[in-house]
């Protein structure tokens, strides 16, 4: 049996603890999607109109560095959330996203989710706190890389 958007949302670790009602509301904005290996998911600076929960595969966040090409800054794997630029104006992607391998995800429509959150602050709170957690984890990972831990000690 094919899993519905609702099933996929209910199974996602990111949304664990959300009520059935909230999951159902979100599922109306959600659809399953597949990124073929080698396809671009979005380009840096583009309109951030959705976000994704990755189920399988891998997405590279990249940025174009003149003379060096598209440099990967971070890789997101199964269980990760792709995209938070949809949360705040000007709703533009800060980095690009690329699927180096076939990747399965659930896509959620940003304007639909924002409308749901405005109507239902409890859902807004639930989602925002989860996104803050993701942002904090990414910030900590970035700080860890800034420390350059594996460098030869001086």
């Amino acid at each position, binding site marked *: 049996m094919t899993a519905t958007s609702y099933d996929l949302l209910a199974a996602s670790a990111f949304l664990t603890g959300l009520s059935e009602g909230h999951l159902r509301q979100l599922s109306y904005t959600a659809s399953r999607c597949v990124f073929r290996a080698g396809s671009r998911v979005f380009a840096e600076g583009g309109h951030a109109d959705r976000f994704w929960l990755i189920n399988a595969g891998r997405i590279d966040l990249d940025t174009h560095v003149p003379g060096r090409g598209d440099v990967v800054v971070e890789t997101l*794997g199964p269980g990760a959330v792709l995209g938070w630029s949809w949360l705040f104006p000007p709703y533009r992607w800060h980095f690009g996203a690329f699927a180096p391998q076939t990747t399965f995800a659930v896509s959620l429509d940003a304007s639909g989710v924002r409308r749901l959150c405005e109507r239902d602050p409890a859902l807004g709170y639930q989602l925002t706190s989860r996104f803050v957690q993701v942002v904090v984890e990414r910030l900590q990972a970035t700080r860890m890389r800034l420390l350059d831990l*594996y460098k030869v000690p001086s």
Partner: protein
Amino acid sequence: MMPLPYRVTGRRQETSDTATLILEPVRQPMAAARPGQFSMVYAFGVGEVPISVSGPPDADLVVHTLRAVGAVTRALHDARVGQVLGLRGPYGTDWGLPVPVGSDLVIVGGGIGLAPLRPAVYHALDQRARYRRVAVLIGARTPDDLLFTKEYDDWRAGGVEVGVTVDRADTTWAGRVGVVPDLITGLEFAPESTVALVCGPEVMMRFTARALLRRGVPPAAVRVSLERNMHCGTALCGHCQLGPLLLCRDGPVVGYDRAQPLTGVKEL
């Protein structure tokens, strides 16, 4: 306490600053080291440093992988085949293998930290049927700094999941970019029956342990290797004291339940 003479019978350059030495006893061998234990390795005329065993348990042959960071490790890194070094040991606590039948084994190594874990990977490959899932998660600064890359395919073929990530890479790298604790997010394992073995820079071990604890792995089941500076190796000089522990005797491998309050403690 006297070092035993060992001859370098093999040497492999792993990365630009890291080499693996195969050492055979000139006369009397040390006892075979258990995975996670270390030797005190003496470069005659230069000095002596603790180095973990990176090969399978074997009394007739000791394998060490070392990174040149200072005078002694540089001298050892530069040792040539035929040269004689001094070894004492094996010392310290080990990874506590085997772990119970049916466990999931998660092995996490950052940088040179993969070297002390390689004997645990060999153990897991040798006794693969004993465990449910076995995963090796590897982090390094750049793709060129990754250790033992030629072995990853064999590990995979032996039923071990291998995840690799680097802090930074150019466009020729097709693998993941990010920190090693991120690899834990998508990993499938049963937290309550998982044992994790973690080795790398202390900050990396702390973040890895937190990621494992968040997934529900009990603190005592997360074993970390605290590789603070050591001197005598025999719990006499106190050089490696960390809180209530003398790491050469009570470590380097310690459960995170004991290590957690100590990892913020600065070098003595």
